[in-house]
Structure formats: structure tokens, C-alpha cells
């Protein structure tokens, strides 16, 4: 920086404030330069992380003929020429490749498979947190243990049971299974939250003559909504993104297959038709991504809390 000083017009002769501002300006440039590797690394990693999804999304909007002739990055040669984009791929994949039906199936599967465990877990969490009965500590410890049991341990017996009952390929089969698999996490999360509510409030309700049911519905549930929302968001995304449970208990018939199963079939049957694969993949992702951007706080909390699920 010596040569800068030699031609520095403010040197000595300038009033102190201007000199100070000049010094501040240059020291800021210097700290920015020394931090440049950090910025570069971060931006590079973020770009690298986004690139695959961005490529998929851009490709899904390109006509099939273009898609099979040039890479998706070629659209950046003239990115605002809107004629090179179309929604035809989505139309094709939603109708001809049963993705539309699969989308409805996914909703049909996910909504009950979220609501049932949320209801049952809330009930049980209240019982375990605020009712006194023998064995509740043992039950809680067992539930914590069940949290990490791999799903694979249950597939064969449950599948056989379903076969005997004729439930294979029915939505009810996955609703009930996801309820069972989601409950340990739900009870664990909600019991922690409900158990940490102030005792005075619940005691006051009891003194005023509120029954357990009234306390639960009028007091505990409204107070615990943040925890319930986190679990609901987690369970919703888990079921929506699930492939294994649906594949094993539902099979791949068009009438019942959710988006994940249908997409994996598409990979098998149309593995090189990138216009269908990219649009199909985006159809499976649009709901979780929407939830991610709309409910980011609950999403992150739910994911972090549910990270050990089996």
C-alpha cells in the first residue's frame, strides 16, 4: 500500500474527517479482499448445490426435440427467448404417464397418513405427560427405543398380515402403516412439549372442574400448536417422499401408486425420455418444495427433531 500513500492527495494536508473516511474506505476494501476466499467458497458451493435442481427445472420446460439435442445450459445463450420454453412436457407426463393420477393418489395417501398419527400421538402424549398410571415411564423409554428401529424390520411380517387380511394394494394399508411408523416420533416430540407446559395452568383448570378431555381440547392443544405443526409438517413430507412403504404395501398399479412409485416406474420404462423424466420429477417435488418455502421454520424444526426416525 506504500505507493498509494505517495499519490494520496489527502495525505496530511486534508482535514481529519476526510482522512478518517478515506482510511475507513480502504480498510473495508482490505477486509473484503481478505474475506474473498470465504465468499468465493460459499457462493461456489451454493451454486454447485443448486445446479442439479436448476438443470432439471429448466429442462422440464424445454420441448422434447430440443432436449434431446442440446444440454440445458444452452438456453443461457439467449435466456429471454420465450419460444424455447413450453409446458407440453407437463401435459404429457400428467395425462399419458399417469402422473396426474399419481399426484391425487399421493394426496389421498398423505392426508390421512398425517392426520391419524397427529391425533393419536397428541392423545397419547397428553396421557403420558399429565396422567398418572403404572408403567408410563417404561412406555416412554420403550417409545424412545422404537424411534430408531429400521423400517425394514417390520416389512415382512406386516406384509404377510396384510396379505391374510386382503389389505395389500389398499390405501388403508399405508395409512395404518405410516401411523404406526410415525407414532414414536410424534409421541416423543409432543410429550416433551406438552410435558413442559406450566403445571399451574393445568392445575388451575383441574381445580375449576375441567375434565381431562376438556383440558386437552381447550387448553393443551391450543398451547401446543407449534409442536403439533412441526410434527405434522415432518410426517406429511415423510409420507409424501416415501417410496419403500408404498412400494411394498401398495405395489405399482396405476390406481394406487403415489408419485414416487410412478416416477421410479417412469425411470424404468422411459429412462432416456428426459422430457418426461424431468417434468415427472418436478411434479413429485413441487409440493415438498412449496411446503419448504412456505413453512420453512416448522419444516426445519420438524426435520431436525425427526432426524432419527427409523
Amino acid at each position: 500500500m506504500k505507493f498509494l500513500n505517495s499519490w494520496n492527495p489527502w495525505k496530511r494536508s486534508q482535514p481529519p474527517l476526510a482522512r478518517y473516511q478515506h482510511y475507513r474506505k480502504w480498510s473495508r476494501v482490505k477486509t473484503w479482499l481478505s474475506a474473498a476466499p470465504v465468499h468465493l467458497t460459499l457462493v461456489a458451493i451454493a451454486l454447485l448445490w443448486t445446479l442439479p435442481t436448476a438443470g432439471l427445472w429448466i429442462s422440464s420446460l424445454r420441448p422434447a426435440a430440443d432436449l434431446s439435442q442440446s444440454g440445458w445450459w444452452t438456453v443461457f445463450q439467449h435466456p429471454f427467448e420465450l419460444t424455447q420454453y413450453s409446458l407440453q412436457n407437463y401435459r404429457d407426463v400428467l395425462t399419458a404417464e399417469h402422473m396426474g393420477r399419481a399426484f391425487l393418489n399421493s394426496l389421498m395417501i398423505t392426508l390421512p397418513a398425517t392426520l391419524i398419527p397427529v391425533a393419536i400421538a397428541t392423545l397419547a402424549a397428553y396421557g403420558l405427560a399429565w396422567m398418572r398410571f403404572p408403567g408410563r415411564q417404561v412406555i416412554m423409554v420403550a417409545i424412545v427405543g422404537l424411534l430408531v428401529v429400521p423400517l425394514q424390520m417390520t416389512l415382512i411380517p406386516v406384509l404377510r398380515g396384510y396379505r391374510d387380511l386382503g389389505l395389500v394394494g389398499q390405501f388403508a394399508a399405508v395409512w395404518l402403516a405410516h401411523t404406526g411408523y410415525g407414532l414414536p416420533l410424534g409421541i416423543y416430540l409432543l410429550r416433551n412439549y406438552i410435558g413442559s407446559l406450566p403445571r399451574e395452568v393445568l392445575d388451575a383448570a383441574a381445580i375449576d372442574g375441567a375434565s381431562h378431555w376438556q383440558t386437552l381440547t381447550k387448553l393443551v392443544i391450543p398451547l401446543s400448536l407449534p409442536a403439533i405443526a412441526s410434527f405434522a409438517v415432518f410426517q406429511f413430507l415423510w409420507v409424501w417422499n416415501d417410496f419403500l412403504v408404498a412400494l411394498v404395501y401398495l405395489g405399482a398399479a396405476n390406481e394406487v401408486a403415489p408419485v414416487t412409485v410412478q416416477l421410479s416406474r417412469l425411470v424404468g420404462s422411459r429412462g432416456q425420455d428426459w422430457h418426461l423424466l424431468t417434468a415427472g420429477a418436478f411434479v413429485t417435488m413441487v409440493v415438498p418444495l412449496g411446503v419448504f418455502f412456505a413453512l420453512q421454520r416448522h419444516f426445519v424444526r420438524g426435520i431436525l427433531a425427526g432426524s432419527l426416525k427409523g
Partner: protein
Amino acid sequence: MAVAIGRGAIALGIILSNVYRRGLRGLLPWFYVGPALVFLLLYLVLPVVQTIYLSFLDGRSQQFVGWDNYRFFVTHAAAGIALRNNLLWLVGVTGVSVGLGLVLAVLLDRVRYEPIIKGLIFMPMAISFVGASVIWRFVYAYRPAGREQLGILNAIVTALGGQPIGWTVETCWPLADWEPITLPGVGWVWSCWGIPFLNTLALMTIMIWLQTGFCMVLLSAAVKGIPSDLVDAARVDGATEPQIFWRITLPLIRPTIAVVATTVVIVVLKVFDIVWVMTGGHQETEVLASRMIKEMFNFRDFGRGSAIAVLLLLAVVPVMVSTMRRFRDGEDGL
């Protein structure tokens, strides 16, 4: 088993005596907890017990075969590959995603645009494994040399003058043309002078892409939890940034690193969807969970399928015991 029955009988006795003493009111808690217990019993506890039992029976669950289903892992080459790959996944994915997550957490602590970067890197957590597989199939897409490459990775390779690579097919990326060597005695041959397990590494990359955001968010919270006067004091004493990282940050967030690593290990252990969609377990990419589904559906061998599931369970038992113990001792540290 006898102990379990005994405990059950005692529990039932306590419930009944409760009913006797307090009338139906003693039953009230069971109306709240009961539905959950029924589901847990039917979908988790009983199936786990039954799967352990089935793993000692033959493929059609009719004859007792002892340890045969487990011996299969040692004798059968395909099962050995699945075991080896699972180890590769465990070490590789956990190491890279936790390491990268840590680097990101520390670097992000110094910039103002932190939320945007965090959001972009965390976003893959919202995507299903199947969706992620399709995204990366497109990244890895391969066309023979001479044709326009659609996958960005092969486009880069060919632009640099290389030959396109079948990322999910090749088991080896040869860099040198040396003779294979054979270890005398065991008959073990090493023929890959270059990057081995190329296709498995390609699949592992997908998992790293999915899991790094999770590691980053948890570790970043831990880094922010470090008292700033501690770091400031070290700076005043003349500590350099690397010294601060190795002597202060790292020791203080070690417990979080352990939790994050455990979580990733559990997720990676059960990896199934990615392998199933990308390669179907062909070209030596099989892992335990995909092998299990194959045994179940393709070979209809419930004995071996159960044995694989039991192996997965055994691998998480230490985690299970430690979380249960911590919960019982009231620390509640998940």
C-alpha cells in the same frame, strides 16, 4: 420371552387392581394411551420379534435352518459386495457430509447473506430420494462419444477433451495402465489403478448432496452457541483463526458433531431408494437394504430378507440403547 410374559401379566394385574380400587376412572389413562400402544405393538414391536424369528427359518418360513441365512453373507459374493458397499457409504457419506457441513457452518458464521446460502443448501432435504435420483441421473447422463452430451458432467469432461464416462455403470475410472496384482494366498485381485468404485461413489454423491444441509444447520446452531467472549478473549491473546477453530470451536461443538454423525449413519445405513432407482443394484452397487427387497420380492426368500433386516437392526442397537439410557436418566439428549 418368559420374562416378557411375566412382565405383561404383572402389568395386567396392576391395571386390574387399579380398576378394582378406583373403578373405571383407573382405566381412563388407557383410553388416551391405548390407541397408540395398539399401533406400536402391531406395527413395530410384534413385527420386530417375528422378523428375528423368521431369520432362522428357510425362505418359505417352514423349516428351522439355524444360522444359514446369516452364513449367506460370508459365503455369497453378492451379499459380500452389499456389505462392503454399506461400509463405503457409511464412512464416505458420513465423513464428507459432516465435514462439509462443519466447514459451511464455520464460514457462514462470518457472512451477512447466510440465510440465502443456507436455504439453497438445505433445500434438497425437501426432495424425495426418488426425485433426487432422477435429478442426478440427468447430471450423470451418458451418450456415446461424438454425440452431444446432455448430462452436465459428461459435457464438462468432453469439453476438456476427455471421453464421456458412464458414471453409474463403470466400477473403475482407470488413470494408469498397470498390470493387476494378486495377493498371494487369498487370491484377492486388485485391477483398478485409478478411482475405484466409481459408480458407488456417484450414488454416494447424491446422498451427500441430500444430507449436507442437515449437518450444516445443526452444526451452525452449535457454532453460534459458542460464547463470543471466549473467542474474543482468544483473539486478544493473539490466537490465529485456525487456532481458534482447532482449540475452541471444535472441542466445544464435539457433542453436536457426534449427534449429527450418528443421525447420518442411521439414515445411510438404510439407504435403499437411491440404489433402487439409479442402478437397481447392478454393477456392484448393491447395498443391504436394496438386497433385502430383492430377496423379498424377486427371490421370495423371507428368511434371508429377515436376516438382512436383523443386521440393520443390530447396527442401530448401540444408538438405541444410548438414547434410551439418556432419556431414562433425564438428559433427553437426542
